[in-house]
């Protein structure tokens, strides 16, 4: 059997490991536009900050392809998928046949239609190549303007902070990290970042740019030397939507990654997930999700059905030494008085409950053992069966009954 994977990042690696868990013989081909060994994209900010290097950024060891007997086509772009002939077409005209195909092509930076942006120099921050281009443009005196105060924009700011003159961030939403933080948490993190010298223009779209000045919606003029666009990403789905695959914002798949097209799978940022916290389809563009989607698809392509049904938002981000951990949904039902438990910058904790379940949480500062909360969200543990009050300040397994704890910690080995 011949399995072709388009893409070489997290979901592709998950797929390769999933295939090999089920089938040691299948012929695997990986096609990637990038010329490099699989690397962890979230590490590009750490690279610019000097906290890692190209070698340590490798997401899997140097012998990964060899050990898994994977044929690599690096520096190749797929221009079309021919589902009838069951082949992908490369930019050099070569056709590569498949029995099963996985699209793990991720996403690309979304560049908003800002007047003047198209014709002026700007940078994005997603790939290693992006990081290197940006790095080459920086000087110790650079005034940098970042459009977007999301995870990518702020990690970029952290990564380049010590190498530039100053950094301003413009964000359309009224608060920073709008997809993961509430107002109170965002204000705390923002004050931490302002303390590090960042400037923010919030609730403020960039109306136009001319190469050295950005005009904001409120009339402010922000001069810059280097412009970074970090306004979100767009899933790379066109190869499959062009031949009729069903898609919403990204490709729609079953829980083993099957698209609506026969023998074609999708995983990672180009595929939607069903968010277990509310049962809705959405793109959960986080690395653990990409890996697990990829692995389920890999196993299914190799004939092993092990659906991945535990997708949910989980974000962990550190910014200038301040850690933020969030998971699940930011909503409470019924609307209750839900003030943060603590509001100190070193220990901000907010929990969201719905229907006797913990549906989400925000921690800022102390995130130690937060996975215990994540597990409560994921497993939908009825809150009235545990002593949540005992662990609101500090996550511990003491919330559970001794019997439940015994099962969790020792499993089968209950007596000896």
């Amino acid at each position, binding site marked *: 059997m011949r399995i072709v994977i388009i893409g070489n990042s997290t979901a592709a690696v998950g797929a390769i490991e999933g295939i090999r868990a089920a089938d040691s013989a299948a012929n695997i081909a990986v096609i990637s536009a990038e010329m490099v060994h699989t690397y*962890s994209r*979230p*590490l590009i900010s*750490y690279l610019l900050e000097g*906290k*890692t290097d190209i070698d*340590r*950024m*490798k*997401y*899997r*060891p140097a012998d990964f392809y060899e050990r898994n007997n994977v044929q690599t086509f690096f520096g190749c772009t797929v221009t079309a998928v021919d589902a009838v002939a069951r082949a992908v077409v490369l930019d050099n005209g070569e056709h590569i046949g498949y029995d099963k195909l996985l699209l793990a092509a991720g996403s690309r930076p979304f560049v908003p239609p800002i007047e003047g942006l198209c014709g002026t120099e700007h940078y994005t921050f997603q790939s290693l190549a992006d990081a290197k281009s940006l790095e080459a443009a920086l000087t110790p005196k650079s005034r940098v303007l970042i459009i977007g105060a999301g995870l990518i924009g702020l990690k970029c700011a952290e990564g380049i902070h010590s190498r530039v003159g100053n950094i301003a961030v413009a964000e359309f939403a009224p608060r920073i990290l709008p997809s993961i933080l509430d107002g109170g948490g965002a204000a705390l993190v923002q004050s931490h970042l302002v303390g590090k010298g960042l400037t923010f223009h919030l609730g403020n779209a960039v109306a136009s740019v001319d190469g050295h000045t950005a005009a904001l919606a409120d009339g402010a003029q922000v001069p810059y030397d280097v412009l970074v666009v970090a306004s979100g990403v767009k899933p790379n789905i066109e190869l499959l939507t062009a031949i009729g695959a069903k898609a919403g914002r990204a490709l729609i798949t079953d829980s083993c990654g099957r698209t609506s097209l026969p023998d074609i799978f999708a995983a990672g940022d180009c595929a939607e997930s069903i968010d277990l916290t509310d049962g809705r389809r959405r793109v959960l563009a986080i*690395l*653990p999700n990409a*890996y*697990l989607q990829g*692995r389920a698809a890999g196993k299914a392509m190799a004939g092993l059905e092990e659906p991945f049904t535990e997708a949910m938002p*989980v*974000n*962990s*981000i*550190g910014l200038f030494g301040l*850690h933020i*951990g969030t*998971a699940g949904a930011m909503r409470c039902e019924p609307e209750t008085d839900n003030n943060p438990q603590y509001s100190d910058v070193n220990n901000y904790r907010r929990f969201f409950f719905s229907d006797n379940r913990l549906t989400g949480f925000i921690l800022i500062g102390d*995130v*130690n*053992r*937060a*996975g*215990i909360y*994540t*597990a*409560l969200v*994921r*497993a939908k*543990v009825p809150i009235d069966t545990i002593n949540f009050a*005992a662990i609101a300040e500090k*996550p*511990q*397994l*003491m919330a559970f009954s*001794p019997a439940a*704890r*015994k*099962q*969790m*910690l*020792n*499993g*089968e*080995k209950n007596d*000896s």
Partner: protein
Amino acid sequence: MKRIYVREEWCIGCHLCEYYCAFANSGERDMSDALRGVKINPRIQVEDADGGVTYAISCRHCERPRCVEGCITGALTVEDGVIRLDEEKCVGCYTCIMLCPYGAINPSDAGKSGRSRPIQKCELCLNNANGEPACAAHCPNRAIIFEEGGSPCGL
């Protein structure tokens, strides 16, 4: 494989496991040199619950390790069933801390060299000179045992 199991009903809450863990991972030869004046940050932690209930928690080395699945760098891997940490690769993003249902991966103190070691976890003392879990070897009431057995069920 051999795993660490904890027997809550036998735990007397002495916290000795924490001190032996800190010593084993200190790199020191002498326990008093290792622990004198040090606020320990061990890889096994005793929870003191209401009613005098105590128990020790360390990495379960899950058969389906969420920490390894979610690790953004590839620093966490499974070697012969043991979840190992490559401190060189880890950047301290704490995704594993967000994913471990036991709370058994924790932020680490800086190493003695001053180099940051962003996280730490139990590696069954395979990463230090002990070679076998010091916590189990020194538990005075055999509440922590190191034996052959299956993976825990988790949450």
